[in-house]
């Protein structure tokens, strides 16, 4: 059975160790925080200058001045701090973020990521902080479906869409598999979703999969 979205987020969360400072992109990456147990201290950084996000607020306890990068209401963890945008992105660009998790349109075997525009003439291209995160985080993991809705591979030899960053992705978590991006080699299978075979994953992948 392929992973559903929650299982994908949980699978990724399993691999986040205590002590890391983690930036989660908008969309599915944000769900990862729900699966890091509160006993494991992980610092969640949000690009809008919140360092140390807590879980979503309970009803009636919302503070409209506390939001994350996706403009959702949040709470603060004990130990949290605020900075402005220049300092938040200094932290990102300066290599102080242990892990960034982003969504993707395509990931290539050389680690290129495309996730911000579908053509040069996109009707509303929106890059946000993705290029800064791709360039500056110590590690970049992508979480996304293995194929598009109509079944085309999103894991490819070379990206067709405009790039977010070059050779920046270290690992991909999909509904079918967990793949490492290894320099000079390409995609190496780290794990498969329960009951999913390597042949099945390879058939849905636009690049060669290696085994360890």
């Amino acid at each position, binding site marked *: 059975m392929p992973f559903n979205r929650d299982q994908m987020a949980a699978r990724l969360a399993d691999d986040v160790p205590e002590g890391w400072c983690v930036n989660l992109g908008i969309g599915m990456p944000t769900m990862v925080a729900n699966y890091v147990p509160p006993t494991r201290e992980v610092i969640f950084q949000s*690009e809008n*200058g919140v360092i140390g996000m807590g879980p979503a607020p309970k009803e009636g306890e919302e*503070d409209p001045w506390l939001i994350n990068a996706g403009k959702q209401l949040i709470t603060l963890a004990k130990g949290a701090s605020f900075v*402005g945008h*220049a300092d938040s992105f200094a932290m990102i660009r300066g290599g102080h973020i242990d892990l960034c998790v982003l969504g993707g349109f395509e990931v290539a075997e050389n680690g290129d990521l495309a996730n911000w525009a579908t053509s040069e003439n996109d*009707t509303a*291209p*929106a890059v*946000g902080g993705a290029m800064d995160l791709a*360039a500056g985080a110590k590690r970049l993991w992508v979480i996304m479906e293995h194929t598009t809705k109509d079944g085309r591979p999103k894991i490819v030899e070379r990206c067709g869409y405009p790039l977010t960053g070059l050779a920046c992705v270290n690992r991909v978590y999909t509904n079918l598999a967990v793949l490492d991006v290894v320099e000079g080699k390409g995609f190496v299978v780290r794990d498969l979703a329960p009951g999913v075979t390597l042949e099945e994953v390879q058939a849905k992948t636009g690049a060669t999969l290696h085994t360890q």
Partner: protein
Amino acid sequence: MINKIVQSVAEALAGVRDGSTVLIGGFGSVGQPDVLIEGLIEQGARDLTIVLNNAGAGRVGVAKLMDQGQVRKIVCSFPRSKDPVVFETLYREGKIELELVPQGTLAERIRAAGAGIPAFYTATAAGTLLARGKESREFEGKTYVMERALKGDVALVEAWEADRWGNLVYRGSGGNFNPIMAMGAELTIAQAQHIRELGELHPHMVGTPGVYVNRVVQVDRGGDWLKPEQV
């Protein structure tokens, strides 16, 4: 006596000229000086270049400013929103120019303007479409893109508290772009929920020293400061 407090939004926005570059603080609606934006719509300056993170939502605030035909160009990182109807329509019809800038580069370009740095190199966007036409250079084997400072004629910012020197204290995640917008413009105008006596603001809590601020107007939302859902 230094006193930057003005008595009305109209007074705060007096003298904003056609063709100005206007830096606007906020991330989505949080920390966005929406009363000053409404004031700018009233004031009527046209042919503006606006610099901010998001291109507005629905038909209020920045979206309304664009809808009124006052904006020639928008410089931002994320023009998408839940309801980007105004921006998308104008952009599709070729009635507004978009300069899309990665968020961290946008912030640093504005900070650089405020800090007297004309240009800088960043790894962000190297090798992508957003680096096209820009000078790049290698440092220690890695490619960096040269980005120019982005200076404003006017900055509109929102703070939680202010004093007559123009010192600003932010609330929650409402700082975001506001401190750099305040640094990056010739004329910085702040709206603040509360005006405090000089000396009441704790020096360590001041997010923007008043040196960067020219005018402060109190916008007391009373119990109604909870903002409507708008991104």
